[in-house]
């Protein structure tokens, strides 16, 4: 039987939604014992929150003063210590899990499987390569300890309503002091984060200037959407690099993606192909973006976007 350790991601007093999705992934392993490990400085409600997730057998809260900040350098030795007796160690494939788990895998001399999108058995997993342009099935020998990050877009969140036992252990391990947290500048609060937003509006080269690109922000704000840009728009200086969507930028999977004035270069399509619904607005009816769009409209974006804004405003009244 598999014993799965799920490393909880949290922000001090709130469990991150990615944890519930990782728990859900763990429960797809038949008959698995699912233990959530929560690393805190103590006095945090996150262990209790993890205990409510359906499918969790037990919550292990490890308290240590250094856990106030969730740094890979100090978490990894703790996770590796707890993880010794588990067959599988999972964390969400967020920047938290991506940073932490390879360090854990190296400490445990275990292979890591990144971005797991489905679990076929205790030893067989599916994961994307080439930014999702190919899907591989990977297999390890029976009895191999596996470290994995779980692609959160592939799993629903485990439901609440559970009541697992919480065990708290105070750790006095000597942890490295070579890595220190300085600050966290939260992403702009007035607009959702591009990586995790449920709606994303992106602009391309057809916007033709940084000033004209503002029309994208306007529509995004009306829809409560994050803003992205094609590499062409970024290279032309219309939008900053951190807004780039595509293979060399952010790979996203929102519920709604609206591509405005984006022709649909391969490297851009790679970044959006897991979006639930793709809408394309482009004046070129031959643009490749229409081949992947669920809803397409051929026309001038500078006409269509203001019209769309008006219709949205009217529907809110």
């Amino acid at each position: 039987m598999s014993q799965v350790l799920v490393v909880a991601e949290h922000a001090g007093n709130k469990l991150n939604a990615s944890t519930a999705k990782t728990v859900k992934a763990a429960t797809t392993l038949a008959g698995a014992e699912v233990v959530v490990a929560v690393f805190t400085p103590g006095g945090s409600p996150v262990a209790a929150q993890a205990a409510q997730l359906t499918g969790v057998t037990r919550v292990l809260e490890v308290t240590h003063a250094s856990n106030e900040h969730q740094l890979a350098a100090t978490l990894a030795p703790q996770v590796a210590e707890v993880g010794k007796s588990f067959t599988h160690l999972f964390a969400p494939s967020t920047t938290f899990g991506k940073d932490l788990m390879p360090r854990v895998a190296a400490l445990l001399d275990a292979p890591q499987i990144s971005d797991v999108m489905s679990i076929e058995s205790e030893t067989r997993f599916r994961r994307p390569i080439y930014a999702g342009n190919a899907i591989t099935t990977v297999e390890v020998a029976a009895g191999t300890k596996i470290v994995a990050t779980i692609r959160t877009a592939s799993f629903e969140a485990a439901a609440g309503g559970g009541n697992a036992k919480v065990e708290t252990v105070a750790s006095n391990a000597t942890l490295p002091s070579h890595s220190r947290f300085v600050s966290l500048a939260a992403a702009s609060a007035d607009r959702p984060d591009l990586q995790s937003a449920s709606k994303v509006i992106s602009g391309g080269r057809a916007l033709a200037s940084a000033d004209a690109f503002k029309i994208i922000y306007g529509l995004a704000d009306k829809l409560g959407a994050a803003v992205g840009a094609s590499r062409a728009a970024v290279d032309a200086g219309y939008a900053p690099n951190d807004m780039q969507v595509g293979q060399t930028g952010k790979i996203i999977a929102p519920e709604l993606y609206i591509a405005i004035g984006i022709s649909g270069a391969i490297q851009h399509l790679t970044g959006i192909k897991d979006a639930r619904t793709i809408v394309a607005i482009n004046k070129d009816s031959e643009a490749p973006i229409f081949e992947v769009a669920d809803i397409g409209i051929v026309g001038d974006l500078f006409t269509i976007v203001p019209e769309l804004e008006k219709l949205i405003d009217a529907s809110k009244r």
Partner: protein
Amino acid sequence: METSQPRRILVAIKRVVDYNVRIRVKPDGTGVMLDGVKLSINPFDQIAVEEALRIKERGRADEVVIATVAPADAQATLRNALAMGAQRALHVVTDGAHLEPLGVARVLLKLVEKEKPFLVILGKQAIDDDNNQTGQMLAALWDRPQATFASKIELTDSAARVTREVDAGLETLEVDLPAVVTTDLRLNEPRFVKLPEIMKAKSKPLETIALASLGVPPDVRVKVTKTEPPAGRQRGIMVKDTAALFAELQKRGLV
């Protein structure tokens, strides 16, 4: 007496299928078609090379050494990084042996022990296997700090202050040197290589090292048993005007 050691940055790079290539899965499911496909330096590694060069140009490093763990024919990729401005290169020749990220990290640790860099920079992930593991694993094996997904690096003599692109925003860490830093897209925009530099790079030192001589055995534990194309997207519907677009979005509960 302590001999003064040059302040050295080691940059690990990987040759991958160029990011502009539309990859195709082999019909028999045994992998991705690589014959005749354009290969280039992994874009994130190119950013790593650029950052190391900028640190040297600011006078904070004496030497930039490029390393790769790859088959013999990957030398051109190293020459390209040398043409960007690095001083020399190390080529660990794999000759058909396959290494997983942990194996590559073990090889890089051998190079770190040999070169004693104060900073190792590599891309956060290679755009072929998308593993995002090697840098973190090297840091663990080396027992040194890691600062992944860097968008800014500021150095003092004994520490690096690194801004990281994390889901919650921008996190800044201070790490003691030596350390491993992995690059994110926003860190810099790599320079273009000029023809005279390409010529000059041909005579820069490039040391080849047989993988077997490092005592890191190939260790394949994760076997790829099948490669498939992703579920394709269907071409959807075209609407004639904005009103029809809005109606369709409403129908699907998206606005």
